[in-house]
């Protein structure tokens, strides 16, 4: 039964951001493919990664990638879970796992990128 029980904040920012990050990801993923995977022999060598990561542009590129990718992916995951009717405790647990894993992966990724 539909209950207009009051909003926990508008869903509009999340909806708009999901689309903006989606567009950004198309650009960043294509860039990532050309840098890393179109020529796997050179893209993955330690020397190539080291040289690239000393450049501020590639640091910013990877920071953008991890931020946008994590946000888009985890927000989408939460959206899928949210499509199902859940008990509040289950919903809160899943939401907590998504938030905590997002923070953990972001810190790990940013720490790795900035260590170069």
């Amino acid at each position, binding site marked *: 039964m539909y209950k207009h029980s009051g909003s926990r904040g508008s869903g509009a920012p999340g909806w708009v951001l999901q689309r903006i990050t989606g567009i950004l990801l198309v650009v960043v993923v294509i860039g990532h493919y050309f840098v890393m995977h179109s020529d796997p022999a050179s893209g993955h060598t330690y020397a190539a990664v080291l040289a690239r990561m000393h450049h501020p542009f590639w640091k910013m590129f990877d920071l953008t990638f991890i931020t946008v990718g994590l946000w888009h992916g985890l927000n989408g995951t939460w959206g899928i879970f949210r*499509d199902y009717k859940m008990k509040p405790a289950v919903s809160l647990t899943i939401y907590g796992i998504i938030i905590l894993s997002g923070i953990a992966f972001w810190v790990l990724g940013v720490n790795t990128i900035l260590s170069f």
Partner: protein
Amino acid sequence: MKVTLRIQRYNPERDSEPYYQEFIVEAGDDKERILDLLHQVKWKYDGTLTFRRSCAHGVCGSDGLRINGRNRLACSTLLRDVNYKKPIVIEPLPSIPIIKDLVVDMSDFYKKYEAVKPYLVNKSPAPEHERIQSNEDAEMLFESAKCILCGCCTTSCPSSWSDENYIGPAALLKAYRFVFDTRDEAADERLDIVDTPDGIWRCHTIFNCVEACPKDINLTWHISQLKKRVAEREM
């Protein structure tokens, strides 16, 4: 010609779960409607078969059914619209409680519909004749105003199947109908109602509602306009 109908039956006083029963009926040609064949079953073979119908001409929206796996109106579906060489499977609209045979309980559907205030709200003094609207403004509403509340859209929506609290495409279409009406003054109230966790954001543009709508309304487009209006307001 002979046509076989495979009809889902369910009598809550007798049956523990729904089952299918086949009837072989006589059809004059392929322009006969599914509703005519259902009438034939009820009037000639089994008077206990229960289904809704009223106008029988695609206006009242009473006879929304699942015919060969697709939500349609029995009165607007001709034999030639389906594969009648095989048994035609006729079921009640999915995902809502069955009262008996092909009759479903639409109470929840109407509650969601009522939640969006499906009427004009204008508290300013009424003019002497009518509240004037330009042709361009009226044209924005024509398609959404064609809805006959048959429920084919909402019961075909996977988001409705997975979350019974989801307000559904029919109610969202009606919200559009009044939010975009230049004579209406309650757009913000309606946007508050649809901008909830079980509201407009559960629509993932799956387009099942568009495929199901017997009045050819592009519900997904209207819901997208409503999303944009909410986003413009909030950001």
